[in-house]
């Protein structure tokens, strides 16, 4: 049992009870996670209790839901009622939300069982998961390397087969980049497709929750239980949810794929370029029509992103002030001290850096030159994509310019780290959906990701192209050296 489909088949046929499924997932975590540190916390009792409820329902002839018994990992930025949610930050240590995020409610209703809280860069700020206040997550393909970020725990847990699937969040590439670096499949849905209610905000106009799994098929099975209008999120789209699994039955014939020339730049790792170019050949050989396109404002995306994201973050993170919940610096006496000590010591360096940046770009006298200008460039970037989608059905690019880098390599060079988002941030600025699928390996044996983009709310196209790709290749099925199913057979009691 590795893919979601395999787990669900075993659960449906009764080969595996929900209790077995949870037990298996917990055992895999215990076996493998000490090497990876992808997991921040588990709550076996809670997960087993939900599993027992599902088993009872099934025994009683009730339908416990289409995902009944499926273990899922949750990035530690999505609220689960009464479960500690830290965002990998000291400042939220001990904080237990009194409510469930909408996606958690939906997943539970479908029968999925959240079993683990997964590591991340603090408050989703970073591309490496070494900006966590608690642990540095390692890449299952090479434990001296980062798994990508900020959803690094989610990507590593899925890659190492600890869990069949996980939720991540993507503000500038935080699902797609770690998926690429860990060799798994990750989807950032269209902005507004999945409710943000209960997702601790980093940059509200860019954040989006999405699934990570081994295959596109698995993503198609999960997405119907995440997508949809939520009256608790004013930015969620009131549009019908398509039958996503239907996308899996279409091939590539007649699909027009755009290849943006601005994405094949100096600094692009040759192995990445080779893998993506050969992917394009394979697409063409199988009936797709590959054409070069232009996204002329690409070079401004990083600057635009870091202005808008940090501006919103400076406001979103202001609530962590030591007054109402979370951690408070103990020695503070005056109100100003409570604020300054709590925030100085409660946040990590990268978070403080972004709060200061964001505060600066919104300050009176600088607002027009930075924030307002960034909003205008954002419109231009969005228009680039609108224009491109007039002629193509999907756009294909590398997900990340390089494979996984070494632990700590970019810790003291934030600008270098920011550049690893160069191919992913435009997608969030434009609000369009993006999928990353494995498309090869570097000479060092590190996974390489292919990013597929489509017009807003056309996740069907991403699933179609991505699934067709995975029918032609097997990169997504290769196991990393650190992998739960390589050591032990899953425990199943039929």
């Amino acid at each position, binding site marked *: 049992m590795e893919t979601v489909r395999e787990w669900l088949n075993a659960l449906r046929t009764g080969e595996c009870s929900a209790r077995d499924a949870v037990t298996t997932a917990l055992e895999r975590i215990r076996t493998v996670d000490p090497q990876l540190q992808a997991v921040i916390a588990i709550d076996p009792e809670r997960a087993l209790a939900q599993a027992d409820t599902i088993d009872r329902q099934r025994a009683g002839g009730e339908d416990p839901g289409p995902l009944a018994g499926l273990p899922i990992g949750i990035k530690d930025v999505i609220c689960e009622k009464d479960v500690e*949610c830290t965002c990998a930050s000291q400042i939220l240590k001990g904080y237990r939300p009194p409510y469930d995020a909408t996606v958690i409610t939906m997943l539970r209703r479908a029968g999925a069982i959240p079993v683990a809280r997964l590591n991340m860069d603090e408050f989703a700020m970073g591309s490496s998961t070494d900006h966590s206040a608690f642990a540095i997550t390692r890449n299952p393909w090479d434990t001296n390397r980062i798994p990508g970020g900020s959803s690094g725990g989610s990507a590593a847990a899925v890659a190492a087969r600890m869990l069949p699937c996980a939720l991540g969040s993507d503000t500038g590439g935080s699902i797609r980049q770690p998926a690429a670096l860990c060799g798994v499949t990750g989807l950032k849905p269209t902005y507004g497709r999945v409710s*943000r209610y209960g*997702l601790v*905000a980093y940059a509200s106009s860019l954040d989006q929750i999405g699934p990570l799994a081994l295959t596109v098929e698995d993503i198609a099975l999960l997405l119907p239980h995440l997508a949809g209008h939520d009256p608790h999120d004013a930015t969620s789209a009131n549009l019908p949810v398509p039958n996503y699994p239907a996308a899996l039955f279409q091939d590539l014939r007649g699909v027009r794929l755009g290849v943006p020339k601005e994405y094949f730049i100096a600094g692009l790792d040759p192995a990445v370029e080779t893998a993506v170019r050969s992917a394009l050949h394979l697409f063409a050989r199988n009936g797709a029509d590959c054409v070069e396109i232009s996204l002329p404002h690409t070079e401004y995306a990083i600057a635009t992103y870091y202005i808008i994201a940090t501006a919103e973050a400076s*406001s979103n993170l202001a*609530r962590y002030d030591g*007054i*109402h919940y979370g951690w408070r610096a103990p020695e503070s006496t005056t109100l100003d001290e409570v604020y300054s000590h709590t925030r100085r010591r409660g946040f990590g360096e990268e978070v403080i850096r972004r709060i200061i940046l964001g505060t600066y770009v919104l300050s009176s006298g600088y607002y027009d030159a930075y924030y307002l200008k960034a909003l205008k460039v954002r419109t231009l970037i969005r228009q680039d994509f609108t224009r491109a989608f007039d002629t193509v059905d999907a756009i294909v690019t590398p997900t990340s310019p390089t494979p996984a880098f070494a632990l700590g390599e970019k810790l003291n060079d934030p600008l270098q780290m920011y550049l690893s988002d160069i191919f992913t941030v435009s997608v969030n600025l434009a609000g369009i959906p993006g999928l990353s699928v494995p498309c090869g390996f570097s000479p060092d044996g590190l996974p390489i990701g292919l990013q597929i983009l489509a017009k807003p709310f056309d996740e069907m196209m991403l699933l179609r192209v991505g699934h067709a790709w995975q029918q032609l290749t097997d990169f997504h099925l290769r196991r990393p050296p650190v992998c739960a199913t390589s050591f032990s057979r899953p425990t199943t009691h039929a």
Partner: protein
Amino acid sequence: MPDFAPVIGLEVHVQLNTATKMFCACPNRFGDPPNTNVCPVCLGLPGALPVPNAAAIEAAVKAALYLNCSVSSFSKFDRKNYFYPDLPKAYQISQYDLPIGTRGSLEIEVSGTTRRIGITRIHLEEDAGKLVHAPGASLVDLNRAGTPLLEIVSAPEIFSPEEAYAYLSSLRLLMLYLGISNCNMEEGSLRCDANISLRPAGSSTLGTKVEIKNLNSFKGVQKALAFEIKRQSSLLATGTPIVQETRLYDAATDKTLSMRSKEEAHDYRYFPDPDLVPMTFSPEYLARLRDNLPETPQHRAQRFVSAFGLSQYDATVLTSDPALASYFEDTIAAGASPKLAANWIANNLLSALHQTSTSIGACKIRPPQLAALINLVETGTLSSTSAKTVVFPAVFEKGIDPNAVVAEMGLAQVSDTTQIDQWVVDAIRANPDVLDSLRKGKVKAVAKLVGSVMQMSRGKANAALVSQRIAAILKDMHGIEISG
């Protein structure tokens, strides 16, 4: 001392009386135990998101239209960022550059002169919570956090403390007419800050502005402004420049005290709230709201004068509270004569309400009962005296049917001429000396006959009819003329 003229601008916050809060489904209610009307949204918990209250937006648009503002088709919410323990998100959702309404106006009347005061802007925002200071600790109550709040900013076109008072009264009345707020200053549902600067009389350049906060009543606003005019005048007279600052008014000492200077002023770093989508108002929507705005207090008073023949004074009194004006109209609708109803309401009812500190809404005597009482007097069934001294107080206290009171207490007046004539004849017979006195021209002796009739009737004889019948019988039977 040279003459300085004040220039005043007022910033009024009006809490809307919607059922729920601005961005969540919590009850919007005053006076509940601390932190009971709260949820993840108004507590500002991580991950919670605001969803705008359509009723609050509609109330704000109505207020803007009622205050003659232009309402553009597009408006948005912005974040105002600052740290304070009563502000759980560390930003207030407010409006910055695209408020709901701009360039409106409001009419005020001071000593018989009517002036139009400009309204710069009206915007919608959420209220903060409240700090409760206990010995050794400050506590936070977030019941109020997220209450919909309308901020109404006047142009600096108010030129005296009296005008400021009139502006506030007029604004409050309009909000009450719209029915969008309780406008209760004690409960904080109406709050006011004032800006004031002085300039040499006749000058057109503005002086340095001082902001006054902690104004807890309209009278307080007037007194604080009067104090500031004196304070700033004496500084200016000695050539001392005014410091741009925020001052707090202390009602106990009737003084303003410095709170913070401009150097400590905040940079609120406003930016559009990315959690909310912009509001758009179609021309049809705006037209529908405009067409359904309530009559203004001025129009209603005018109508009371022209349609019901009330005096301007009574009309103004009755329209000074929309509930009172409706009460009056309901009383007429229940069959009372407009002039009598106006008298009863403006005199007896209002003073009874005042004495018992009752609001018109909580008043037990309802319009149909008041109309019934008025008609009992008008048809002569009840004497005006009994009506005022016995029946009205009973109905006011218990909210019962006046007819029942009259019947129960046997207060029905006797207006039967035959019966009254019998009593008059008996009275004359029992008081022969009265005829002698009358013949000697002592007209006042008639009072003895009236008293005697009232005694015989146990007070129920119709007093007017009694006087009339005594005069007739004296003339017809005894040849004595007492008219005049």
